[in-house]
Structures are given as structure tokens and as C-alpha cells.
């Protein structure tokens, strides 16, 4: 249809004029689009200022407990919206250091938290929960039956990466098991030789075991509860286990947000602590 009209005005001059007109229209359309995008880019901040929302960055192991915490908080603090971003604490800390808009940061270990605090991105943290490690195996699997079976050759073991808190704790625990009261001096070396994959967060370790891809994985005690009977758990001897302490803080961003502090207070309060306990966490130390 366009070409049909074009043939009617077929003098070169007309063609140029027509082209110019079309190009102009196209350009203004493009500028309009850019303007729209700019507006879209701005609007969330405008909404946040008027809207009572809290953005919480939390370690993956907190996923289920904090989702419940958020729902309860929204119920008791009417009109407040809580949004979560769950990932490994190390990813979250890098994102916060790069300026991600988090109001609250809950980490699975003190080192990761310290890095964020030292960079001036967050307030002094409070410890709000503790956790311990456990060995998980697929349901009905008989490859790994005791803790020392982890060192058997051929076991497909999955851990969290070296820099992920769960992975750090697991390696610390294995080092304990190679020490004085442990299983044997080369236990850690033999277990680490069985590692087939280093996952980016503790929940990915759990999934690999749930699927039966791995024969065993090392996760937090609370993750077993989250897997709802799809995995078996093998306890790690108490004297070898590592106590993971979870710190929480309000970030620099969150200081302007009154509700960020209220959320942290809620996590530390009795109702908050009860939710954590229901999900298998130990109380604040």
C-alpha cells in the first residue's frame, strides 16, 4: 500500500520530501521511546519514596524462614511490602558493594558481613540465628550411610563453593574431622577428592541431592526441613560440627527507610525468633 502511494508521487523532489518527513517522524518516535524508558527508569524510586516497601537481601539458607517472616511482618505492619532477594551471601555482598538497592542484609557468616560493614555500606550487625551442618543423601540411597562413608572412593559428593559460607563451613568442619579427635589425618583430603561439583549456593547443593544426581552433599540442618522428606540426613558428630552464626544489619541505603529498622527489630523480636526456631534455626547467641 505504501509503495502504491509512493508511485503516484514519483518525482525525485517529492520522494526526498517524503523520505525526510518519514525520517523525522521515525526520529521523534524514537525520542519518544527513549523518553518513555527514562521515565520508566525513574518511576520505581518515586514509588519507593511514597510506598512503604523494604528490600531484604538474605542468604539462601534463610529462604523459607524469611518468606514466612515477610508474610507475618506484612500482616502485622499493614501496608508495608517486603521484597526478598535470596542468593549466596557472597553474591549479595558483592551486589551491595556495587550499590544494589538493599535496605536490609542478612548474611550466613560473619566474614561476608564484615566485608560489607568495612566498606561503609552497612551498620554494625546483630547476630540473630545459628545453624549447623548436616550430611544429606538422596531418599533410598545406600551409598553413604555414616559420616565416615564420605571418604569412600567413588562417592559423588557436592559442596557449596569455597567462597560461599556453606562451603567455607563444610571445609572447616572437614578440617576438624582430620584433627585430633577426628576420624583420621587424611579424612579431609579423601573427602575433598570425592567432590564432583562446587555449587554457587547451598540450595543448589540440596537440589543436586534431591534429584539423586549426587550421592551426598553438605548443607545446613535447616535445609533438610526445607526438602520435606525428599532427602535423608546423617548427623555430623557434635564435636566436629561448625556453628554458623547469622548476622543482620540495615544498609546505608536502608537508613532512610524507617521500616528497614523495624524489620530488623522484628527478626530479633520474640515472634521473629519463633519463626526461625520453627524452621530449625538456633536462637541468637
Amino acid at each position, binding site marked *: 500500500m505504501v509503495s502504491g502511494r509512493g508511485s503516484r508521487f514519483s518525482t525525485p523532489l517529492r520522494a526526498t520530501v517524503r523520505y525526510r518527513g518519514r525520517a523525522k517522524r521515525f526520529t521523534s518516535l524514537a525520542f519518544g521511546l527513549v523518553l518513555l524508558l527514562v521515565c520508566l527508569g525513574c518511576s520505581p524510586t518515586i514509588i519507593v519514596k511514597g510506598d512503604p516497601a523494604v528490600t531484604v537481601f538474605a542468604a539462601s539458607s534463610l529462604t523459607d524462614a524469611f518468606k514466612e517472616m515477610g508474610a507475618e511482618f506484612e500482616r502485622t505492619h499493614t501496608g508495608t511490602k517486603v521484597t526478598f532477594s535470596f542468593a549466596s551471601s*557472597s553474591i549479595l555482598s*558483592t551486589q551491595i*558493594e556495587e550499590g544494589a538497592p538493599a535496605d536490609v542484609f542478612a548474611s550466613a557468616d560473619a566474614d561476608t558481613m564484615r566485608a560489607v560493614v568495612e566498606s561503609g555500606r552497612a551498620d554494625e550487625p546483630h547476630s540473630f540465628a545459628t545453624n549447623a551442618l548436616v550430611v544429606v543423601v538422596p531418599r533410598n540411597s545406600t551409598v553413604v550411610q555414616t559420616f565416615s562413608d564420605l571418604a569412600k572412593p567413588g562417592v559423588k559428593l557436592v559442596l557449596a*563453593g569455597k*567462597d*560461599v559460607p556453606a562451603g567455607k563451613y563444610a571445609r572447616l568442619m572437614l578440617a576438624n574431622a582430620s584433627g585430633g579427635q577426628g576420624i583420621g589425618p587424611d579424612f579431609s583430603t579423601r573427602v575433598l577428592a570425592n567432590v564432583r*561439583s562446587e555449587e554457587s549456593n547451598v540450595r543448589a547443593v540440596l537440589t543436586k541431592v534431591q534429584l539423586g*544426581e549426587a550421592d551426598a552433599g553438605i548443607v545446613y540442618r535447616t535445609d533438610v526441613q526445607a526438602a520435606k522428606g525428599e532427602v535423608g540426613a546423617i548427623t555430623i558428630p557434635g564435636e566436629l560440627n561448625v556453628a554458623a552464626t547469622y548476622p543482620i544489619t540495615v544498609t546505608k541505603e536502608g537508613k532512610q527507610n524507617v521500616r528497614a529498622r523495624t524489620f530488623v527489630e522484628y527478626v530479633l523480636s520474640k515472634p521473629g525468633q519463633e519463626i526461625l526456631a520453627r524452621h530449625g534455626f538456633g536462637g541468637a547467641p
Partner: protein
Amino acid sequence: MGVGVLVLAFAVFFILPFAGLITRAIEGDRATWDLATSSVARDALALSVWTSTVTVMLAVVFGTPVAYVLARTNFPGRSLCDALIDLPIVLPPTVAGVALLTAFGRRGLIGEPIEAWTGFTFGFRTLAVIMAQTLVAAPFYVRAARAGFSAVDPQFERVAYTLGASRFRAFFRVLAPQARSAMLAGVVLCWARAMGELGATLIFAGSLQGSTQTMPLAILGAFEGSNGLTGAVALSLVLLGVALLALWLFRVVAQRAGSEG
């Protein structure tokens, strides 16, 4: 003038991220260099290069006949086959990873019987990386080759048949040379996609230095690591360099192929 502004805006948007990467690398100084030459980077790069090469070879060997059949024959359900091959292009690679697990995982459709008979498992092996890359990247080659074959007038092959050429000979002497640039473009697309594969590999193959940790997985790992962004920047730069080199090589090959044809 208006068009110039649009072109400029587009160019700025594409150049800025790379400028950021290079600026960070220079700021990182010694740390960047150490990380870019670490064993993690070396192992990941070697693994990425050889798995993506195997993937491209598999795509060419198995994909060319598929592309030929789709372009030159007509059978019931051909358009369905066409759509099926395009599917991995449209779906996110994470879906491919999950799908591979349900088929080849230890509890998968054929993964389970295979382990029961032979004790062999697919997960956590370099083979799994290649499978993930092939599922995600090979369709790009098939698509390009198919389009290339379709664009060639079938009369040329008919003439070859009347001169006594077999189907096989007509393909290699008549069709393939004319579709060469399309096939090459398919190879580049397929290789690039395989090189960048992350989601399917992470889900199906896992991540371990030396056996399944390809460059994108190593970059993700570095991002999580104690070096944070510096580590990720260093590894990204290595990959950027390799990609530029490869693209330049492909260009040279394509030009030579073009001047011969």
C-alpha cells in the same frame, strides 16, 4: 542528523559496558593480571575452547544432514520438525538443563536404566557439558545451514543428477559450495552460543575446575568469590579477548571461502 543521534546512542550503549570492564581491569592492576592468568582461568578457558569445538563438530556432522532433509525434502510433519529444532533457540538454557536432567539424570528417562545396566552416569562429566552445549547451540547451525540450502536453486542439483552425479556427490560438489557462507555463519553462531552456555551446564553438569567449569561458570564463581568483581572482570577480559580473536579468524576464513567460491 536525527538518524546520526540514534546511531550514536546505540553505539554508546554498546561501547560503555566494555569501557567499564576495561577501566575496572586497569584499576585492579596486578590483581587483575594474577587472576586472569590463574589456574582457574587457564583450566576454564581450555575446557571452554575444547568443549565448544566438539559441539561445533557434532553440530556439523549431525546437523548438516538434518538441514539438508528439511530444505530439500517434503514429508508429513516437516514443519513440526522445523519448530522442534527452533525450540532450544527460544527457550532459556535453564529449561534445556532441566530437560536434560529429566532424560539423562540418574533418575531420568534413560539415565536411570543406563546406570542400572552399566553403572555409567552423565552428571558432573565433561560429556555433560558437551551435551548441554549441543542441545542449546546446534539448532543455530541447523537453522543457518537450512536457510542456506533453501536459498540455492534446486535446478543446479537436478542438472548434476542428469550428468550422473549421486545425491552425495551433488551435495558436496554443487549444493554445499554455494551454501558455504551460510554454513560458516551457522558455525560461528553455534560456536558463540556454546562458548557462552551457562544455565544448562550449571544445572546438568555442575561446576568443578578442570572437568565441568567452563569460562562462564568460572566467571560466575569468581563473582561469588572473595575477589568479587575484580575476579569476574579479569576472567571476562580473557573471554572477551578470545572471542575477538575467534571472530577475526572466522572473518578471515569466510573471506577466503568467499573469494574461492
